[in-house]
């Protein structure tokens, strides 16, 4: 057995070393492409979902989200909770949001009695502009005008889904003929007040694009809130472990009975998780097709190689080289091609593709698609490819080696 391996290696090494550089390059190129197909196809599909999650995590939810219990309207004991959050050194930043359902109306000054009112319902969100911008970088997402600033009072920022000219879905209600600088009327219950639109915001987390924002002080004044109980708190911590620790602390202090305290993963809607799983499956499916194509390609390459070398295989057998040693020689060549091809693929993936997609995400409407290629998953794919290549190399070699020795030598 060991003798056969040694002779197999002796033959394989020299066949690779002295074969045409173009043939070797072509086979390695095919293996590299196959590997990239395996990693990139599924990586982009998974990256699409990771992009959605990242967008929500970065701009809205953070590592830990606190929201009202299902049967409650607000986060009770908000002040105490915030005090505990503020005292935690692992908290990088947090943002408190106050939310109330509101009706926005535009063009009310010029509207005639017979005209349809230019109205839309939307969640009105009171935020600390500086804190919120530091938290989610929303000022960078303005498509018109500016973001809210400290000290703003009679101004609002509209999400782009509330503005007809930016609304993709024609069936969704939105305000017609509004732009930065226009005045709109906002109504909550019996309270109505006029505000100037200072900007329009668009984020890939669609929740953000569907809200209207005003400064928290103005919100509390406008809504006549009697307490400081918030509706949403997003918290970013230094690490995921710190988020878990903070969640534990909050719950241990009994705040779990006053609010929902969820890590980002826990707060991710089930449908997003289902989509992630589906895209992962799709990625694996396309990857499997890639594996099958690679197997067939390598089978053909090794088969042609073995067929054209049939005479020499016969001679090797004739002079006493065992069938096993000859088969090993072909298996080792397949191993070499697949390892080198995958190695180049890994180099391309981590040196060029991952950084490239990180810097230039694919612009999907609902997320910035990146390439997700965790090293363990990549190595597993490499293992699958190498194993498949070995099998695809072994079968044709076995088929040719089993042929009659003399017929092979004489080319019959």
């Amino acid at each position, binding site marked *: 057995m060991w003798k056969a391996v040694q002779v197999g290696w002796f033959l394989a090494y020299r066949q690779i070393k002295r074969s045409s550089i173009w043939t070797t390059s072509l086979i390695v190129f095919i293996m590299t492409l196959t590997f990239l197909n395996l990693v990139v196809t599924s990586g982009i599909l998974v990256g699409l979902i990771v992009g959605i999650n990242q967008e929500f995590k970065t701009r809205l939810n953070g590592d830990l989200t606190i929201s009202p219990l299902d049967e409650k309207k607000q986060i009770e004991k908000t002040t105490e909770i915030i005090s505990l959050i503020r005292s935690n050194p692992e908290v990088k930043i947090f943002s408190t949001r106050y939310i109330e359902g509101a009706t926005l109306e535009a063009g009310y000054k010029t509207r005639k009695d017979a005209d349809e009112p230019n109205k839309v319902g939307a969640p009105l969100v009171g935020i600390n502009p500086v804190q919120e911008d530091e938290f989610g970088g929303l000022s960078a997402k303005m498509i018109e005008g500016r973001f809210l600033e400290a000290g703003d009072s009679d101004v609002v920022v509209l999400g782009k889904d509330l503005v007809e000219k930016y609304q993709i879905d024609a069936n969704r209600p939105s305000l017609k003929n509004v732009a930065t600088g226009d005045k709109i009327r906002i109504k909550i219950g019996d309270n109505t007040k006029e505000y100037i639109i200072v900007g329009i915001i668009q984020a890939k987390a669609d929740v953000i694009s569907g809200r209207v924002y005003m400064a928290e002080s103005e919100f509390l004044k406008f809504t006549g809130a009697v307490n400081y109980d918030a509706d949403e708190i997003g918290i970013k911590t230094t690490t995921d472990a710190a988020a878990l620790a903070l969640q534990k602390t909050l719950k241990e202090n009994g705040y779990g009975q006053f609010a929902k305290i969820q890590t980002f993963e826990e707060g991710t809607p089930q449908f997003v998780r289902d989509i992630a799983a589906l895209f992962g499956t799709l990625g694996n499916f396309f990857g499997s097709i890639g594996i099958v194509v690679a197997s067939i390609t390598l089978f053909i390459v090794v088969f042609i190689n073995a067929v054209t070398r049939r005479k020499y295989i016969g*001679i090797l057998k004739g002079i*006493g*080289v*065992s069938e096993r040693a000859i088969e090993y020689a072909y298996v080792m060549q397949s191993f070499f091609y697949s390892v080198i091809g995958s190695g180049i693929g890994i180099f391309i993936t981590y040196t060029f593709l991952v950084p490239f997609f990180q810097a230039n995400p694919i612009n999907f409407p609902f997320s910035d698609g990146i390439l997700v290629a965790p090293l363990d998953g990549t190595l597993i794919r490499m293992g699958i490819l190498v194993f498949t290549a070995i099998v695809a190399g072994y079968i044709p070699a076995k088929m040719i080696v089993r042929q009659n020795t*003399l017929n092979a030598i004489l080319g019959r």
Partner: protein
Amino acid sequence: MITVQNLVKTFQEGEVITHVLKGVDLTIKTGEFVAIMGRSGAGKSTLLYQVSLLDHPSSGAVIIDDVEVTALSTTERTQYRLNNLGYVFQDYALIPELTAKENVALPLLMQGMPKEKAYKKALEVLASIGLADRANNLPSKLSGGQQQRVSIARAVAHDPKILFADEPTANLDSESGQMVMNLFQELHKKGQTIVMVTHEEEYGKLADRIVRLSDGQVVK
């Protein structure tokens, strides 16, 4: 000693059956140099392939030193060829990716000899046939005569009991052919048993004995 008993080889293609060897009986003593001759289609190469275990006869037996080699399994035959037989083919049959030294060392490596030792032995054999300076050349960089001498070196490097040669001079010019025959004679003088198929009378005469075949039978 090689004993061939009532050896028959038939080929079937469709419904056509061709009897190439029709009950050949032959004995070759250890150390003997035998030339098998005959006209084209007489069955001389076929006889060589059966005796040298490259092919399997339809019936009959080949016994080498009390071992009925025709009864061996495929794996045993490969092992037997490796340890006991050497081959020289008409078209040299060198492995193109291996240098002269590597071609000669290959059977030794397959026998389990360490690489350094196998290379040393290969170099010695190549030197003995005047090709030491070509040891690192690929076959494509050697002339036909040189390739055939490398082929002989490969066939004898592992000290086989019997050296089989199938038309070893057919592809060579007369000078190279003579050089190959001189090598065979030298090996024969050292006690090497040689069975050679040739159609060239002048080379056949250099053997101890000529076995003539006609229509699949030994006639002389």
